[in-house]
């Protein structure tokens, strides 16, 4: 067993363990932190595959941005753990049974191909994963790339549409309106007949 194999198994084991803990942990903050752990180990696995760009992006985007936001949300919300875990024990046997069967079936199928999977050719020393990605991203995959951009745009539109709300009762000032106001808008001259002397 080469050294890289050892590294792979260690990180893979940690990753699986972290994944299990994400769903079995009692405290949601712990779950989130285990998810961070899972991301880290996965990015280590990508490094083993010489996919440096993806490994770094995973850590930067998911760990650095997404999970931090996620932790904020989890900590700010008062989540009732008891009600969340209700029925967990009841559904557990069925879940384990179904999951177990799927795992067994997957092993049956995937193990059959494991032996004859050819090893990829070793990359030359000058190989750069980032460069390779950049090379195809704007050429071969320009169309999916553009679509992905549109999806992000839709996500922005969606987020704004669903969250931006103008409450009718809020009190705020509009300086532009204040400046543009005319005398007629504010002052009304009323002609009042003078009261007759008593």
């Amino acid at each position, binding site marked *: 067993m080469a050294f890289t194999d050892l590294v792979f198994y260690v990180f893979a084991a940690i990753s699986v363990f972290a994944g299990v803990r994400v769903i079995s942990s009692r405290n949601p903050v712990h779950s989130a932190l285990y998810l961070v752990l899972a991301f880290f180990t996965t990015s280590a696995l990508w490094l083993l595959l010489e996919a440096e760009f993806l490994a770094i992006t995973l850590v930067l985007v998911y760990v650095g941005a997404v999970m931090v936001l996620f932790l904020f949300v989890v900590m700010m919300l008062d989540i009732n753990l008891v009600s969340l875990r209700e029925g967990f024990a009841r559904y557990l046997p069925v879940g384990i049974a*179904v999951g177990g069967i799927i795992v067994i079936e997957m092993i049956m199928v995937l193990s059959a191909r494991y032996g004859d999977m050819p090893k990829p050719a070793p990359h030359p020393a000058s190989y750069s994963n980032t460069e390779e990605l950049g090379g195809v991203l704007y050429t071969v995959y320009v169309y999916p790339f553009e679509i992905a951009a549109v999806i992000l745009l839709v996500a922005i539109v969606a987020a704004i549409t669903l969250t931006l709300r103008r409450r009718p009762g809020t009190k705020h000032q509009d300086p532009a309106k204040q400046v543009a106001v005319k005398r007629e808008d504010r002052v009304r001259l009323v002609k009042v007949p003078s009261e007759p002397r008593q």
Partner: protein
Amino acid sequence: MDMTPNMTLSENVLLSIVLAPLAGAIVAGLFSKAIGRAGAHWVTILGVLTSFLLSLTVFKALVFDGAAKFDATVYTWLVSEGVKFEVGFLVDKLTVLMMTVVTFVSLMVHIYTIGYMADDEHNWDEKSLAGKNSYQRFFSYISLFTFSMLMLVMANNFMQLFFGWEAVGVVSYLLIGFWSTRETAIYANLKAFLVNRVGDFGFLLGIAAVLMSFNSLNYAEVFAAAPRMADATFQVFPGVDWSLLSVIGILLFVGAMGKSAQMPLHVWLPDSMEGPTPISALIHAATMVTAGIFMVARMSPIYELSETALSVVLVIGALTAFFTGLLGLVQHDIKRVVAYSTLSQLGYMTVALGASAYSAAIFHLMTHAFFKALLFLAAGSVIIAMHHEQDMRKMGGLKKYMPITYWTSLLGSLALIGFPGFSGFFSKDGIIEAVHHSHIAGSSLAYFSVTAGVFITALYSFRMFFLVFHGQERMDEHTRHHLHETPAVVTVPLMLLAIPSVILGFFTVGPVLFGDYFGDAIYVAAAHDGLAVMGEHFHGAFGFILHGMMGLPFWLASAGVFTAWFIYMKRPDIADVFQDKLSVVHRILENKYGFDDFNQKVFGDGSRGLGGLLWQVGDVKVIDGAAVNGSARLVGWFSTVVRHIQTGYLYHYAFAMIIGLLVLLSWVVVPGFVR
């Protein structure tokens, strides 16, 4: 005669003949509000006039210019296992004769209707919606009828024949029950429809037998193949061999019995007089009821191959001619007398068919169409004048009030009884002579019937004539005060119809009856051809008249007229004496031999009882209760149970997806892996 055999008939002309009345019917029927009353009668009359004029040109082309007959498909509706269902025309001299007669009578009736239906709103309840556009609707119906009848006679295949057959039946149903708020009218049209169903069932079986044995519906193909089938037999009941052509012939004739009102399926025709009089003239005297006669003549290549079928036709016709004539003697309703006379005359035509004298049958059909339409319209004219009173006991002495109606009626009656020189004489004498020459089974019975029938015909015709136009004026004072001749739209058709009633026979007897007018349109086997034997002794129409003056029928007819005069004019008390002395006979006749009671009791009540039983037990309990509602309840119950799977919980849904995935995996991948 200019012979140009290459001349052909135009398909477009034939299509126009058929479609012009249809177009009129559609416009008058669907746009009745928009075009109003005048619009409705103009558009339909224009349509029928077009048809009539074009029919005349076709007649001229075929008869005088020697054009070849037209036999072609216009439109193929569908092809099923090699059998074509088509719309096509077969126009030869037989067809064109019918076309001309139908369109001419129809045209007369259209014009006459303007007068007859002018005050139709009085016949309706004020609140009745059907009464709002009854005038337009009526014109639409009669035009539609003309279209249907033309489709029938011009067909070149059995499918179209059946279409026309049923279409005229439907329109007849609509028209008999035209005054749909009258219970008697509804009863009558239902009766007509049901009785015709019986006939049509036989007809349909006949067409099915043709299709089964010939594998074609086209006339030409069937007729060409018929001689090869002459000895074919088949078994309906095991062990009993029936001649195929006899079965086909008799089944088709059952259809003709329904439509042409032959005993015992004649019961609907007298009741159909509930319809407006123009209809009685057009449909129930001149055209539709002759469809059966025409059909048998058209099928002559089949009938000639089966003496059994011919005998059946002959005997049924003879019975009808004699017994329905007798019924005419006891009727009081003026239209019913004419109706029974129609039945009797249809019997004459059927007898002629049975005696293989097809051309005599068609000849009588033609002359009868004119004088019977005339008599009906004259009766209608009387009815208009009498303010829709139809009972002859309340008439009398109308001669001085209605001279035109009187004289045209006299001409029509003389034609009907076969007075020498009138058109009815030639056709009726031709039939009697042809039966005399026939040798098939039943011909002697038929000869007796048609000869005795002459006396009866004369008796009831002039009984009616004298009762209506002569003698005491028995109507009430109010009616008498308003009596006057009917307007020109009524009298002009009467006069126009009177002309052919008188002279047509004289000019056409030679070619139609004894000449080669029909050519190959009608086929008569040499052994049956009585007319040919008569033709050898035929020396012009005058000779025929002279010969007729010396024959038995003439003296019988004269005796009938005299008897009528004696009983109803000279000694009216004799009629009452007869009624007392022969009360049994009178009662039998009053009850119309009990056909109606029998039908009502046995078929009417019987089928209602059976239907009720099947409904209560079969339908309500077994089918509705167990099969329909039971299965529906089961599914409904299952559905309410299953819907609870849809809990609304997200994790249940997700879990269902995982289960689905598991099923797919286990169902497909694992077995595939093991294999």
